């Protein structure tokens, strides 16, 4: 199977400049700088690369939204906030292949003619931060970051910023607020960041994995990349597999790869041979799938959606038969309630309220209307907020109820017990 992102993973010293250079690194940057920015954008468009941060928006198309020849400076933000539960692919990329990531970001910055880029790293990612900071320093020394990069006449600088531990700062406008030094709260759209982002200037936010694929695309050509994967989901994708499997980890497979193969071949099958109950295919925010449905699904945007969930960030959470679903949802509820930035009424109130109810239901202290109330909370919390965090709690609630309602009902006190007082 063709590897795009992990082609050089594991090679000696690949995390160093020399190691990356020896593996052919920076040839893509050199090539890109000889192209016009528009040509680079076209190349990436033709690759069919879609954003790997979760939303799956075509990367080249997004770059094309930046106004040409505007007076304001353009910014690139690299989204390395990776906080979606079940997702740890960007971390592997930054720790093991920092120069590849940086090369991709440089090409992106050139394509949108940014003169400043911000690498926004999740606060807990200590090694990632050190690797990226070092990589930026090295490239500065080598002249690949700075004035007139490789004689192209284009200047670029990079800032490395470590977050303070907020999930919502991974949302692109929350990230921008944070970069601006404000409270980490998503911004109302419109205006969209490509027109009015960081400091009121055009800004592109891209996920690390999206950018990490760019050097390969420039080297091999967009068509080579689009030949991989399926009709609509091109290329390869990283899947962070966690939970009840023998070999959890980050795997690169072609889009459209069968879930069953990922679990059984790559991950060595279910842990201890215990039967699987459910799989969350794209990070904790996407709908849970019953294991039998999930195991028949292929890993591409369209197939997963058809099967009732979303590919999201590719965080595959594998759940075995012994796991209580109310317990799992209780944990997720607490996470979202803790991470809601608190701006939007439905999210601020709904996440906390929902979490409190989920907790008492899980503990067997549920009240009569609780499951109905949770239904209502989930329904009205989604789709009417500034960012998708609120929906990210709705989707789990709705899907857990859809497939595993009986487990919740079983925890509800019986009428007899209630009648006791």
């Amino acid at each position, binding site marked *: 199977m063709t590897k795009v992102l992990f082609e050089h993973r594991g090679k000696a010293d690949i995390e160093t400049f020399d190691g990356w250079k020896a593996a052919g690194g920076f040839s893509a940057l050199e090539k890109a700088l000889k192209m016009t920015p528009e040509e680079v954008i076209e190349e990436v468009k033709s690759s069919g690369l879609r954003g790997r941060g979760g939303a799956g928006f075509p990367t080249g198309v997004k770059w094309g939204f930046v106004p040409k020849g505007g007076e304001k400076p353009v910014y690139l933000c690299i989204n390395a906030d990776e906080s979606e539960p079940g997702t740890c692919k960007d971390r592997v990329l930054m720790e093991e292949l920092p120069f590849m990531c940086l090369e991709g970001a440089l090409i992106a910055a050139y394509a949108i003619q940014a003169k400043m880029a911000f690498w926004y790293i999740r606060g807990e990612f200590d090694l990632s931060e050190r690797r990226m900071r070092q990589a930026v320093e090295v490239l500065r020394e080598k002249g690949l970051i700075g004035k007139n990069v490789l004689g192209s006449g284009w200047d670029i600088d990079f800032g490395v910023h470590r977050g303070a531990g907020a999930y919502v700062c991974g949302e692109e406008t929350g990230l921008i607020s944070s970069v601006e030094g404000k409270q980490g709260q998503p911004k109302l759209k419109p205006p969209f960041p490509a027109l009015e982002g960081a400091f009121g200037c055009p800004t592109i936010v891209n996920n690390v994995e999206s950018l990490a694929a760019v050097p390969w695309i420039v080297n091999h050509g967009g068509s080579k990349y689009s030949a991989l994967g399926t009709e609509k989901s091109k290329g390869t994708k990283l899947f962070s597999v966690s939970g009840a499997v023998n070999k959890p980890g980050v795997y690169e497979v072609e889009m459209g790869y069968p879930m069953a193969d990922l679990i059984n071949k790559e991950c060595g099958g279910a842990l201890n041979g215990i039967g699987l109950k459910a799989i969350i295919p794209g990070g904790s925010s996407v709908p849970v799938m019953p294991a039998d449905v999930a195991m028949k699904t292929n890993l591409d945007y369209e197939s997963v959606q058809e099967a009732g969930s979303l590919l999201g960030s590719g965080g595959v959470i594998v759940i075995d038969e012994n796991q209580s679903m109310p317990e799992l949802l209780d944990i997720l509820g607490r996470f979202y309630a803790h991470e809601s930035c*608190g*701006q939007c009424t439905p999210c*601020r109130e709904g996440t906390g*309220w929902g979490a409190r109810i989920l907790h008492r239901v899980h503990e067997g202290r549920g009240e009569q209307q609780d499951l109905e109330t949770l239904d209502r909370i989930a329904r009205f919390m989604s789709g009417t907020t500034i960012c998708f965090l609120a929906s990210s709690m709705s989707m789990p609630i709705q899907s857990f109820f859809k497939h595993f309602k009986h487990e919740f009902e079983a925890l509800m006190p019986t009428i007899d017990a209630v009648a006791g007082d």
Partner: protein
Amino acid sequence: MSENVKLTINGFETEVPKGTNLIEAARCVKAKVPHFCYHRDLSVAGNCRMCVVEVEGMRGLPIACNTIATEGMVVNTESDAVKENRAAIMEFLLVNHPIDCPVCDQAGECKLQNYYMEHDRRDSVVAVEDKVKKGKAIEVGPRVMLDQERCVACSRCVRFCDEVTGTGELRLLNRGDHTTIDTFPGKKLDNNYSVNTADICPVGALTSRDFRFQARSWYLEKDNSICPGCSTGCNTTLSHYKQTTLGDYNGVAYRLKPRRNPAVNKAWMCDFGRTEYVQINENRLTQPIASNIEIGWDGALGHIRNGIAPLLERGSGVVAGVASYDCTNEEIWLFKKLMKEVFHTDSIALIANREDGYSDDFLIAADKHPNRRGSMAVAKGGVVEDLASYLDGKLAVITLSADVLSDWRDEASKKAFSAIKQKICLQSNGTATSDASSVVLPATSYAEKDGTWTNKDGRVQRLTAAVRKEFSVRSEIQLMQQIAHVMGVEWELKSAMQLFAEIAASVPEFDGLDYGKIGKLGATASAAQTVSA
């Protein structure tokens, strides 16, 4: 000329200027889109989510505050989905709300209460002990009280301090349902405009400390007024006790709030101006007095006649007339006429009652009088500059809301004034001058009279008689006409409106204006000319 767009809202076609959002556009067809966070004079935050509407061709329910009307747009503000969502937002807002309406000053004018009645009306499903607890009765600033539990996190107050005053004291701290409105540690909400945050707070989270527990809002009647505090002339709403069927109207004023006027003060006023209601209630002159005796109206007026008529026989110019920049244009106009036709004095003195004070580059002006510009324009020609020499040797003096004896006045003027035996004083509140006067006629405060003031920018604004006093007061205009009458000069009785018409006909600064044109928001003469041209 700005371009317009046509759109349909709830089946009605309407036309609005390009760039208008759907909350404002809906107002044009008399549809009310409920909202907490949106405020016309602040940036759009879009966080409360109460203002959702349905727009054909748009996915989901967009928020009206951040959706701009476009040509051909079809909007429904009352669809089932919209109503259901509004009710859901109300339910969310009430999850952690303390609902302490009985002890909340906002009750009766609370968006949360009102919207609950209009859009929700369901029973509470959250037990009190399950609610998130926060701080109550926090003295967040010298003039503002904070109840964090009542906050709906709309960020209006935060945006006010960031965008209007630029002082940035407030923040919504913490996250999720622990989001809490507060100041930065060690900071107070103490800017000169701080009480505006209480006005725009849609609930009882921020309230005025001055108004705290003073009156339930439903017992208050609200009338338009103008702040007398400085020459900016912020438009205000004056709350005073309501006439009820029980007849317990007590003429007490309770508070001033800004009244929106885009040309003057937008939706704001300063904290100093807020206190200007106190003078309506306190230290009032309540009885006609002559020689320290409560003598009644007829007695007092008779006293004036008996005292001054003989003096007039000694020639013209023996009676001095002193008015102040607190007077209305109509009062100054009539005062000049009174002095000339009744007391045979061609010139009057126009004085400041207060020294210049603090000013800023927003609303607060250094001149602490509401009508310097108008008084000067109306009195033009007959104004004397030097008060001391003007008063020197006069046999009688009539003061109209003029505090000649105020502390800071030059000694020469005070001496010249004190030397005059016959001192007739028309004013509303007790001062050193009224104390020293031989005849005191209790007159109206700015809240009890009709008339106009001209602010520093030449904008002529209306005062209307709102508060009715239980004790005996008469308007200055009425009193001046009665004085003329007892002095034996027969005038046709005129109202403030008629006097204004006379002013408009002869003073250029008022050219083309009348009370109709001035309306609630005031007008300038040049603007009036453009309209009539």
